[in-house]
């Protein structure tokens, strides 16, 4: 089935709405309203277009931002949870662990170790052929 240009524009508008508002508690109803399509059709069209449901996409955006904020070390895990639109720390932690494989605090600790190593020995992270060819050590 072809999707008309008008429908594409609506689906894209909805995706951009998620991109701009994913850190707030937004519902499927609010997103589909943005696209001016019924919830049922919006869910179907979005899933077909992006190969993931609106909820999966929203979760992916939130988890990605959580990873960036955990690496930054400015906010606590609870503050990050609130900042990215999760209602409880337990749902955030369990979802983060399910998606990334470790709990948020463990992820932060692991990234801190990596960051320290990268600052102390940046060349340890770069294949030697690049160091040699691009004169990274001079």
């Amino acid at each position, binding site marked *: 089935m072809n*999707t008309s*240009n008008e429908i*594409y*524009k609506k*689906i*894209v508008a909805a*995706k*951009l709405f998620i991109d701009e508002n994913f850190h707030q508690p937004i519902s499927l109803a609010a997103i589909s309203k943005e696209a001016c399509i019924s919830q049922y059709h919006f869910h179907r069209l979005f899933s*077909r*277009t*992006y*190969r993931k449901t609106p909820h999966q996409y929203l979760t992916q955006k939130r988890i*990605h931002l959580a990873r960036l904020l955990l690496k930054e070390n400015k906010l606590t895990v609870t503050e990050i949870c609130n900042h990215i639109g999760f209602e409880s720390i337990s749902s955030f932690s369990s979802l983060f662990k399910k998606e990334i494989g470790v709990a948020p605090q463990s992820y932060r600790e692991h990234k801190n170790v990596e960051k320290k190593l*990268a*600052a102390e020995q*940046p*060349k340890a*992270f*770069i*294949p030697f052929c*690049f160091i040699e*060819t*691009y*004169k*990274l*050590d*001079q």
Partner: protein
Amino acid sequence: MVTKLSHVSLFVLDQNKAYDFYVNKLGFRVHTDVTMDNGMRWLTLNPPEQPDLEIALLTVTSSVYPDADVRNALTLLLEKGVLGAGVMHTPDCRATYEELKAKGVVFKNEPKEQFYGIEAIITDGVGNWFSMTQPKEH
């Protein structure tokens, strides 16, 4: 036995502009961003769903290419935007085209049906073009 590609280098005219295009517009993830003692910035990115491939964004510098003729030739190719760097996959070429066009990305070609799928030609604004393809479903 060779199994997969882990690192590729991509020459760009400007690393900051490249960062804006690949990270802020396309949604690539920053893998490593460190500045070496000699001032050279080692910036590598992962495509959103390909965390084990690092794309190193490099500029044409005299430390890499001491020969001015080589440097000038490479810079000219980048300035002309004639270097085709590869193929990017998207789940929906037309939707991604609409979204990226709204974000100011310049395309050489609009989405078009090909025997292997739907393809548009995207430019990164820093010297390279890519095929952006939605592979045909079999």
